[in-house]
């Protein structure tokens, strides 16, 4: 299986451990990646550009979709935020032929045209819909037995359900739990799993943003989770990077590692901690590693 791969800015920026971990895991799974970043694909706008210039955001995303169409490959990302923003843009473009024509008039400058066939899908959904949970189990050589993990989706991969086509693909709703179970881990269900991590308001209202970090990480910890697992690098940045501040603010110990989805896959597939970039986290992943008997 080959994909037009959209890694997003943060997987090679603030979370530099995510991109190489993904490449290794996908290679092992037989998912061949043609990186759209190398072909000049832009940032999705992350919902921020859309606040000021929705049309420009849609033009950028249509350009990325057109690149995937040119390659005749399905489009895959590893960021919940990119997923949501692309799904929403795609819906607007597909629902209104006049709007699509207006967008295409700009893409024509580069000789591109978006025909409306792209279906952007996160690696998480690809695992469920293309690889399949049963097939995924065949790649597990180090079952994550005894590891208690709590899912943390990131808003844009769970809402709005209309653009994300949850009715058409109902298994997307609990896809993260299914993948965790397939890897042998024990799922710790917790109410914050689909709530906001607070990252979008970090530079606007840090106190509220850090409160969200404190709430979700301490809830997961109190329910006995060894780690939170997320398919969203922005959630990772906040839950991991601002957890020390959250501990100060909440005046309690939390100290729960935040693991990227590809890192969890990699650990179950037998990669070591270094290959998965686990030493780069702010909150040490050592306790997770010792629980599954992997040298730190």
């Amino acid at each position, binding site marked *: 299986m080959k994909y037009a791969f959209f890694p997003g*800015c*943060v997987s*090679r*920026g*603030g979370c*530099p*451990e995510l991109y190489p971990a993904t490449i290794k895991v996908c290679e092992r799974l037989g998912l061949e990646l043609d990186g759209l970043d*190398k*072909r*000049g*694909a*832009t*940032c999705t*706008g*992350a*919902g*921020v*550009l*859309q*606040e*000021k*210039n929705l*049309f*420009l955001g849609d*033009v*950028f995303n249509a*350009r990325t979709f057109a690149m995937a169409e040119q390659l005749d490959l399905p489009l895959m990302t590893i960021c919940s935020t990119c997923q*949501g923003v692309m799904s929403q843009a795609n819906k607007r473009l597909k629902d209104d032929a006049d709007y699509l024509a207006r967008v295409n008039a*700009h*893409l024509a*400058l*580069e000789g591109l045209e978006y025909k409306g066939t792209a279906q952007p899908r996160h690696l998480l959904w690809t695992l469920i819909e293309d690889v399949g949970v049963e097939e995924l189990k065949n790649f597990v050589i180090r079952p994550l037995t005894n590891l208690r993990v709590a899912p943390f989706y990131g*808003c*844009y991969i769970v*809402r*709005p*359900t209309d653009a994300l086509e949850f009715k058409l693909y109902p298994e997307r709703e609990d896809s993260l739990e299914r993948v965790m179970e397939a890897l042998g881990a024990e799922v710790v269900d917790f109410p914050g799993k689909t*709530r*906001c991590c*607070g990252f*979008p*308001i*970090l*530079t*606007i*209202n*840090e*106190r*509220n943003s850090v*409160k*969200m970090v404190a*709430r979700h990480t301490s809830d997961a910890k109190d329910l006995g989770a060894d780690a939170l697992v997320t398919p969203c690098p922005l959630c990772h940045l906040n839950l991991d*990077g*601002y957890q*020390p*501040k959250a501990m100060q603010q909440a005046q309690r110990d939390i100290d729960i590692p935040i693991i990227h989805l590809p890192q969890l896959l990699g650990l179950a597939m037998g990669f070591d901690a270094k290959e998965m970039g686990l*030493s*780069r*986290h*702010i909150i040490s992943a050592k306790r997770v590693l010792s629980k599954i008997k992997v040298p730190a």
Partner: protein
Amino acid sequence: MQITVSVRRYNPQDKENPSYWQEYSLDVEETSSVLDSLIKIREEEDGSLALRCSCRSAICGSCAMRINGHAKLACNTKVSDVAEDGGTITVEPAGVMPVVKDLVVDQTLFWDKVRQVSPWLQPEGEEPEAEYLAPNSDMTHLAGVMACIMCGACVSDCTVLEMDPNFIGPAALAKAYRFAADPRDDEDASRLAALSEYGGVWDCTRCYECVEVCPKGVAPMDRIMALRDKAMEAGYTNNNGARHTDAFEASVSHSGRLNELTLPIKSFGILNLPAQMSMAPVAVRALMRRKIPPIIHKSVPGVKNVRRLVESVKEEQQGEGE
């Protein structure tokens, strides 16, 4: 169909154990609503169950509560949509607002927020002889916001209000948009100035909870984003939120990707030294773990194409604005 309804009960008079879960098993028609089931419980099994309801037609907005963890109107939620035969439905009071008893919440916070945005038309100048005239297209656009039935579902599930009661919140901000975007209203400037302050439009996390739970398609978050745009256009840009958006647009338009190193610096304001310093511990920790973006920000390959695209889009938009 056979269902179990698990209700989060709350009895303020019970000082020892005021809050607890109680399960009721009952037979209901597949076409029954959750509200039908709750009324059946109250009338046939447990008269002490408190809930608020009236029209049973998704018009009055009285019966917003959390069903299976998310805010919904009990009257327009079919039992068969939220549980299988033999399954369980969890019912809790709406979130954020304090519980009075069982499923009844005190909506004071909700109404205070709505009052805070002066939710009435404020035209200037002499009153016209007949009615105020407004273009059809403007009013059709506003019909979506005016569909709000003030049920409070969006407030219940708002991720910010859950943390900070100072936030004006989705329902009141959607209401503020309804007047700020009304061509007959002349108080846009003062409305947008107030909404650009702490607790206003920039405090929203853009999490889409309110869009997802609104039973009337009001899409409060989309209205909040439209208010941000209006506020920036009106010149209310001296705040972290507007600076963040400006810096983001500039970075992506120039290089095709986000410059993660300069974005927070520009959002706080380059001369805002206390804010810049507050980031230092986080930056040092990240540096020690090599968890940082490349120091030299690189543009995407073929960035000239991106810049030409941005120019083309902006030319079209300027043409529309003239």
